[in-house]
């Protein structure tokens, strides 16, 4: 049995440092998710409006997000702003900007999809019962929309967390980078540390994302036949 280099994690504060790195990833995702929800919901509602100009703009925005790798967007914001505006943008802020830009598009598309999926006769039957427009919206449409939306937006959170792993490529010291540093520092004492450390990072991500995925799946199943 080869040495798997797991002992490195129990040396000094290594495990704590790794968890600290994980917190950096989580913090970036959570802030970006917050912005995505705040900006994505109004944008999604705006997208249901029948206007050619709005449609053209949002279409372009969504298509850019659809085809451009987040990595490329990160590079543009991180390196590009330095060059063009002379800002020395903090890598973490650049990450939040990029992930919010991406998440807002995803969220808006989900919101739009949820709204247009409500059948027209739901509005009509509510009106037939004598409800006024605000009542129809809050009592009939909104609850149904939320049920369709929530599982999918929870899913977006796990995607966001997974995608934050990219930020190490522009120099944010997150969990993977901390792992790399630990491996480097213990190169001589534990030459096999890469196995234990990267294995642990892998598991940490899994432990973080899996329960959220399960929750999303559970809600989707539970509400699908409502």
């Amino acid at each position, binding site marked *: 049995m080869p040495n798997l280099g797991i002992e490195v994690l129990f040396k000094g504060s290594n495990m704590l440092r790794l968890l600290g790195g994980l917190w950096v990833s989580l913090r970036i995702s959570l802030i970006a998710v917050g912005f995505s929800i705040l900006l994505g919901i109004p944008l999604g509602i705006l997208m249901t409006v029948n206007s050619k100009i709005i449609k053209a703009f949002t279409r372009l925005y969504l298509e850019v997000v659809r085809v451009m*790798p987040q990595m490329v967007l990160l590079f543009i914001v991180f390196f590009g702003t330095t060059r063009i505006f002379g800002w020395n943008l903090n890598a973490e802020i650049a990450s939040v900007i990029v992930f919010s830009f991406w998440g807002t598009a995803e969220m808006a598309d989900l919101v739009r999809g949820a709204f247009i999926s409500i059948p027209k006769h739901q509005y009509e039957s509510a009106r037939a019962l004598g409800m006024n427009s605000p009542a129809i919206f809050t009592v009939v449409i909104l609850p149904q929309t939320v049920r369709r939306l929530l599982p999918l937006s929870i899913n977006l959170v796990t995607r966001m967390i997974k995608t934050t792993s990219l930020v190490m490529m522009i120099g944010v010291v997150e969990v993977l980078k901390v792992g790399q540093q630990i491996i480097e520092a213990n190169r001589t004492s534990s030459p096999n540390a890469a*196995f234990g450390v990267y294995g642990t990072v892998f598991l940490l991500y899994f432990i973080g994302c899996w329960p959220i995925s399960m929750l999303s799946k559970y809600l989707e199943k539970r509400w699908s036949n409502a």
Partner: protein
Amino acid sequence: MNWEVIGSYLPLYWKAMLLTLRIGWLGIVFAILIGIFCAIIRFYKIPAAGQIVGVYIELSRNTPLLVQLFFLYFALPKIGIPVRADFCGALGLALLGGAYMAETFRSGLESVAKIQTESALSLGMNRSQVVLHVIFPQAFSVSVPSFVANIIFLLKETSVFSAISLMDLMFTAKDLIGLYYKTTECLTLLVVFYALILIPVSVLGDRLERRVRHAEFGN
């Protein structure tokens, strides 16, 4: 924007794009094969194999490709399994994509109602004829939108290959920026080349979706 600089960088980007395409293509083909295989195992609930495939899918879908690649590339050699970087990239993409494709194909299979199978059986078809002529084509058309989304997702994911020192587009861009500080040119080329890869796929995907849509509405 300095066009001379762009001209001199073009061949480097071109080479990098070919590398991305080569590994991406290989990874996607294997992802589809793994996906079909796993979807069938899951759909028919084959004992033991079904559970193993389930664990693989969850592990794969709930961790980032970057971490998976680090594990494959840096950790496996430590237990005596050295992996070449390009092979590692294709393998990582295939494993990740396999899990996504498996879920796509499985939900496609599940969307074909049981009674469709029965009506085919009642016409005297045997099991394999039913699967081949009735279930698969319908499952595939239902899967197409999600299939196309997976392909685009996987092609975008190739952008992390540079982390295992593959000289792809990201690597080239970062390298050139670091060497000559021609940031604007480097980033423009980066966007153009990714657009070159992904816009045709996106357009073709849309067209494919429209073509098979007739099957989605069922009876």
